């Protein structure tokens, strides 16, 4: 998409017009949750956070893949880093994520572990070819956005006869997590800003239950200020009319059907399993696991890795923050014991986590 076109979605005059309309139409508060961490950052970066009417309460959801990677999963990849003949391949976001005892991949690298930051899972094919005597282990973290590319990489590795590539599969799926939030009695969410990238793969159908079963609205939304404002305005209108809908406002990227080819590849290689979410706990059917036919790529099987629930972090409110029950600055550790340099909980760990965004962008 051209940048000229993108600029139109940042038009200050149009944004002001929608903001005025929202103020005029607001009839009581609106508690909305943006599921995706990129939306959280976009809302802060554009300054929208400081311009929205006070009655609109903005909650950051469990849609940051790094945030919801369970500590047991983090410990698993940190245990693997540094093993003889293992090269860990990862997206950059995971480099600073702390595991037990303050370990992280940056420190592991300094201790001699071979860790390679890749920009695309396909880069691991080259890495595997260049290091035939080593095992390249890719850390498969992320939602439906990244899973198809990793599945595609595995298929390509198979076609090319590459035998020294493994995937440590910790993928999670978004709609199941939203249902878990909606059934939690503690949460109070009027509507969702649905993730643009995830929706580009899965389309609109998997979200329909939000309106049909729970009577809440949800809008697939792009990442520019106008995208976000239009979706909020729409949800205010529906709420005032006593209606609930699930719709797609990001049609320039997302089709209602999603990317069928990508979904097909994803489910050819992976299958749904129960998964542990950091700060939230077990969500049935919310993870993706490598299917038996592809187990030659499965690092969990190769290294006998199991993922287990551990004790909660004392004082950390990330679980409540990810569910939209609390805001980051309501956590007693925020900006004190917990900072981006020394993160305690998941929401401060990732640059797209809600606590990290509050820390980085919010003016006191």
């Amino acid at each position, binding site marked *: 998409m051209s940048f000229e076109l993108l600029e139109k979605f940042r038009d200050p005059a149009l944004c002001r017009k929608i903001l005025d309309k929202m103020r005029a139409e607001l009839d009581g508060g609106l508690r909305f949750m943006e599921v995706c961490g990129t939306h959280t950052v976009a809302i802060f970066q554009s300054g929208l956070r400081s311009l929205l009417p006070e009655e609109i309460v903005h909650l950051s959801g469990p849609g940051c893949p790094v945030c919801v990677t369970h500590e047991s999963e983090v410990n698993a990849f940190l245990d693997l880093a540094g093993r003889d003949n293992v090269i860990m391949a990862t997206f*950059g*976001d995971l480099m600073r994520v702390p595991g037990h005892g303050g370990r992280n991949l940056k420190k592991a690298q300094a201790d001699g572990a071979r860790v390679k930051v890749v920009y695309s899972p396909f880069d691991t094919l080259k890495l595997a070819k260049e290091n035939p005597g080593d095992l390249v282990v890719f850390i498969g973290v992320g939602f439906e956005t990244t899973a198809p590319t990793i599945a595609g990489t595995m298929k390509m590795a198979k076609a090319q006869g590459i035998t020294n590539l493994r995937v440590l599969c910790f993928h999670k799926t978004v709609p199941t997590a939203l249902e878990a939030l909606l059934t939690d009695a503690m949460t109070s969410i009027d509507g969702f800003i649905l993730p643009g990238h995830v929706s580009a793969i899965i389309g609109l159908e998997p979200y329909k239950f939000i309106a049909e079963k729970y009577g809440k609205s949800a809008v697939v939304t792009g990442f520019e200020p106008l995208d976000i404002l239009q979706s909020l305005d729409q949800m205010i209108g529906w709420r005032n009319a006593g209606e609930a809908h699930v719709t797609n406002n990001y049609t320039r990227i997302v089709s209602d059907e999603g990317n069928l080819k990508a979904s097909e590849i994803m489910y050819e290689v992976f299958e749904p399993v129960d998964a542990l979410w950091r700060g939230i706990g077990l969500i049935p059917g919310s993870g993706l696991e490598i299917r038996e036919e592809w187990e030659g790529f499965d690092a969990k099987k190769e290294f006998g890795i199991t993922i287990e629930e551990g004790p909660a972090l004392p004082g950390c409110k990330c679980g409540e923050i990810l569910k939209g029950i609390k805001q980051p600055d309501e956590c007693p550790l925020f900006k004190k014991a917990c900072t981006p340099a020394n993160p305690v909980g998941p929401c401060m760990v990732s640059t797209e986590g809600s606590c990290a965004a509050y820390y980085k962008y919010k003016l006191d």
Partner: protein
Amino acid sequence: MSDKVLLDYGSGGRASQRLISELFLKYLGNDELNRLNDAAELSLSGRLAMSTDSFTVDPIFFPGGNIGSLAVHGTVNDVAMMGAVPRYLTCGYIIEEGLPMDDLETIVASMGEAAEHAGVQIVTGDTKVVPKGAVDKIFINTTGIGEIIVDPSPGGDRARPGDAVLVSGTIGDHGLTILGTREGLDFEAKVESDSASLNHLLVRLVRELPDVHVLRDPTRGGLATTLNEITASSGVCCELVENDLPVRPEVRGGCSILGLDPLYLANEGKFLCIVPQEDADKALEIMRADPLGRDACRIGTMTDANPGKVVLVTQLGGKRLLNMLEGEQLPRIC
């Protein structure tokens, strides 16, 4: 000489002598360096500015320059930011055994050209060759010294509420070029490092406007980090206007793909300039008259609203904090 750098060239014996006379003196030679004494004899007076920097950039060759020219530009600029005329440089080379001699020659030649262009002399140096794997190809240290021509010198603690914040050109070009070249990323539009010596422009600026409050080189950590250092040392707030920040569309595009923020990317040929409000237009006029400052513009104002903080006024008119970079920028998952 052999076609690759051998450990012999760092032995201190004949091979070292050949390397010095046939390569380093060929490109960097001047009356003082050619004497090959144990130390250089300099002629300097008054208040001096001195700075040192080590260059370990990967890749060593990149669009717009290489580690040799960069080692001159970086240190010359650091000295000049003090309101000083850079005069002399030292250089220390740590070379990995096996580096192609042609690469070394290219690097030394471009260092010589850069020094000549900046009007500084390299008066003493050192060469070490270390076993393969002990360093990554080549590391260069340069130390620079120059004579300060204004009193008081510009400094981060001198920013005052009401001052205008100016930048000499587009930001993020160098950082994105290095990252793109390192990772073999093929951007649709061409990006090139802005690496350059700014001393001639800076000397003109401080001669005509001696009351420049702050001059800073927004290298690693980029514009945002440098401004945070200034607000921390002055206790004043910097309010930046997002719409006024000069970023090339190709840099904005590259950053958007990689999930990086151009405000945190390194620059090697740009400077930040904070001047009293009444001097802003004159400062811009001087900067724009020089090719290295032709895109100079005003990007914000120092205020007393949020002491010690950098605040960004967004395109929509909202305000948000612009914090210091925490560690290095890393590309994101989605």
